[in-house]
């Protein structure tokens, strides 16, 4: 019998550990952050990022990449701040249409054998254009119910933490526990064997994209709930943040190796890295570079552990 933890547990340990280290550093620099309100302030912007990361993770689990994530979330935010508030029915229809377009993109990418990077890069201009049409200047207003949902004050833990846990659990159930999730990850792992077993890879890929669309829509709505108004460029950073979150959380670009819990932790870590650097009083000019440095350190750590693991296996 082996007592060593499984590879998946090790994969999850690194993001969890980096989050804990960063959190400890923040508390040490700013002890007042160690409170209900402090934690909420630290993490509340992580909620939309976590949702976008889950969306990106679904696409990465079928070996694709979505470069339109940021502009799509921005577009959703614009719809939420305008139509969803003024004419809820039209707003819902538009958002449902967005999800359908995501599913159709999955179909097109599969049928025509197109690189997802190219297709999604093209779509990113479409979403950006639509967002500018909706809100040429920053404005709009978040629907009341979204605002109150995002600023709720649940007992025990702040909303940001509760929401992150809920997102992680729901995504885990869908991606890791359900049959559909197994099928989606199976495509990432070995598409041919899924085909040989008689499944429709086309339908599964469309489902993965559709689900990603749903999570991205939720990300946009959550973002507007926090910022109260929207802007066509509000979430452009989300494309790279979501990819970084997935990788940070133990996922891989190819091979269908993903972890929803890890992805949420990755999103939290990325958000926290920003606050940590502010507490260190690093000038904003250097912050993006420093954020990159943190990312590199964490990923290097994982590479190191992977290598150790492989050496163990070869023995």
């Amino acid at each position: 019998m082996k007592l060593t933890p499984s590879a998946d547990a090790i994969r999850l340990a690194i993001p969890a550990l980096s989050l804990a280290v960063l959190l400890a550093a923040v508390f040490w620099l700013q002890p007042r952050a160690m409170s209900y309100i402090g934690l909420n302030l630290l993490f509340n912007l992580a909620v939309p990022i976590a949702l976008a990361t889950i969306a990106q993770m679904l696409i990465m689990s079928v070996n694709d990449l979505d470069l339109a994530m940021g502009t799509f979330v921005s577009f959703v935010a614009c719809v939420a701040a305008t139509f969803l508030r003024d004419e809820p029915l039209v707003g819902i229809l538009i958002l449902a249409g967005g999800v359908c377009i995501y599913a159709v993109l999955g179909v097109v990418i599969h049928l025509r054998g197109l690189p997802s990077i190219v297709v999604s890069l093209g779509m990113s201009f479409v979403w950006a254009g639509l967002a500018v049409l909706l809100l040429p200047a920053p404005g709009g207003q978040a629907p009341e119910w979204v605002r109150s949902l995002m600023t709720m004050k649940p007992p025990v833990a702040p909303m940001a933490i509760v929401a992150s846990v809920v997102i992680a659990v729901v995504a885990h159930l869908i991606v890791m526990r359900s049959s559909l999730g197994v099928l989606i990850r199976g495509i990432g792992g070995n598409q041919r064997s899924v085909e040989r077993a008689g499944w429709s890879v086309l339908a599964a890929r469309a489902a993965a994209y559709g689900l990603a669309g749903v999570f991205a829509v939720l990300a946009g709505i959550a973002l507007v709930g926090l910022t109260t108004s929207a802007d066509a460029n509000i979430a452009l950073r989300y494309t790279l943040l979501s990819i970084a979150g997935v990788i940070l959380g133990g996922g891989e670009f190819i091979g269908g190796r993903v972890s929803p819990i890890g992805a949420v932790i990755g999103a939290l870590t990325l958000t926290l890295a920003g606050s940590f650097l502010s507490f260190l009083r690093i000038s904003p000019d250097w912050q993006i570079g420093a954020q990159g440095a943190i990312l590199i350190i964490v990923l290097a750590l994982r590479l190191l552990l992977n290598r150790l693991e492989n050496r163990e296996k070869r023995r």
Partner: protein
Amino acid sequence: MTVRMSKAIIEVADAKVSFAAVRALAGVTLAIRPGECVGLVGHNGAGKSTIVSVINGGLTPQQGSISGDGEPLARYGINAARARGIRCVFQELSLCPNLTVVENTRILHRQLGGLGWRRRARLVIERSLDAVFPGHGIESDRTVGDLSIAERQMVEIAMAFSDAGIAPRLIILDEPTSSLDASLAEQMLAHVRRFVASGGAVILISHILHEILATASRIVVMKDGRIVAERPADAWTEHGLVEAMGSVVKGEAHRRTLRDLAKEPVVIAQTGRGLPLQAKRGEIVGLAGLAGHGQTRMLMKLHAASTADWLPRRDPAVTFVAGDRRLNGVFELWSVLKNFSIASLHDLALRGVVDAGAEAERAGEWKRRIDIRTPDMANRMLSLSGGNQQKVLFARSLATRAPVVLMDDPMRGVDVGTKQEVYEIIRQEAQRGRTFVWYSTEMEEVCLCDRVYVFREGEIVAELAGDAVSEENILAASFKGEAA
């Protein structure tokens, strides 16, 4: 016996399949009845994998009919085959490495869905694993990627024998024991016998002849896309099988002349598992054996050993002719000229700038020498036929100054005429002192070599030189007999 009375589970009649210039199946008729284990043997390119693909529904023959249980099946595909209980264990492992054993079971059995599928899938796979490999010790919630190769193969085999609604009736095992040790292989073969005794059918493909002789009830020998012999297993011997796999008539016309190379220096050598490999100046060394038994890995090792990791060498030591043109040979969007000159740009460049005149001149010279059929070397690479593309790849390698040419089965899917032309070029170049290390899956090509190393299970098991290079000797070494 009742076996003869029962209807065939699947019957393929006069199936013909060709891929471009290559005829993979030239009219094969094969019926598999319940309660029999059919052994299928043949050398590379005999058509074993193709007939397996036809039976499991992955490939529709261009001609011929398929019937199951006595009824003709008009629309036959993967799903129809699965619904009839036909399962396949492929030579290359076909599980999803990122999923657990249980999740892989879910992928294979579509009807397992609904709440609580994990429990049902676990039951299905554990029952099957216990039946095929008692005492296996594989936990079904482990990720397949974390299992050893042997464990993965065990899971895959157990997966094929598992029953979740549709009972397996015909199981195709393509080299199932390649990563199993002797006792596991015996466990599996014992299960095959039990399965057959209870009315199931098995097609067994293996390079280990005594496994087939001991397990199969009937043995079918294929060669060049045809069934050349078919007899009950007890009417065969190992020697008889090897003989049947070879061709009866053998043209001596294109046989090479024996050359004395004893005094030539050794230019490349590699030791690994099995016998050491070495090649002398001007020698054509063949790597033979069944496909996928370590020949390509050996070529990669030879290549890696004589090229630098970081900076290119001034004088290249080896050059490589790719077998899989699309994967690692051709630049599809480039012109024929650019495809040709990419390997020798160093020689054609002056202070880092390519001399277009010299490039065109060298290309024109090689175009004449090996007769690349294109009106203009500036045409797109893909405008050429497969054989001509392959000639360009040859020219690319031969135009370098490298004294050693490594070839990874480069003649796959090339027409006969082109082959003969390329053989001639190789002979000429060898005369001038070039060394060729040539992995080929075609017997005719291997017999052109001065010396041949036969690979089996990742190691060199035989070295044949001079007159010993014969089809019979190569076949005997590629297939493992009782003695080994």
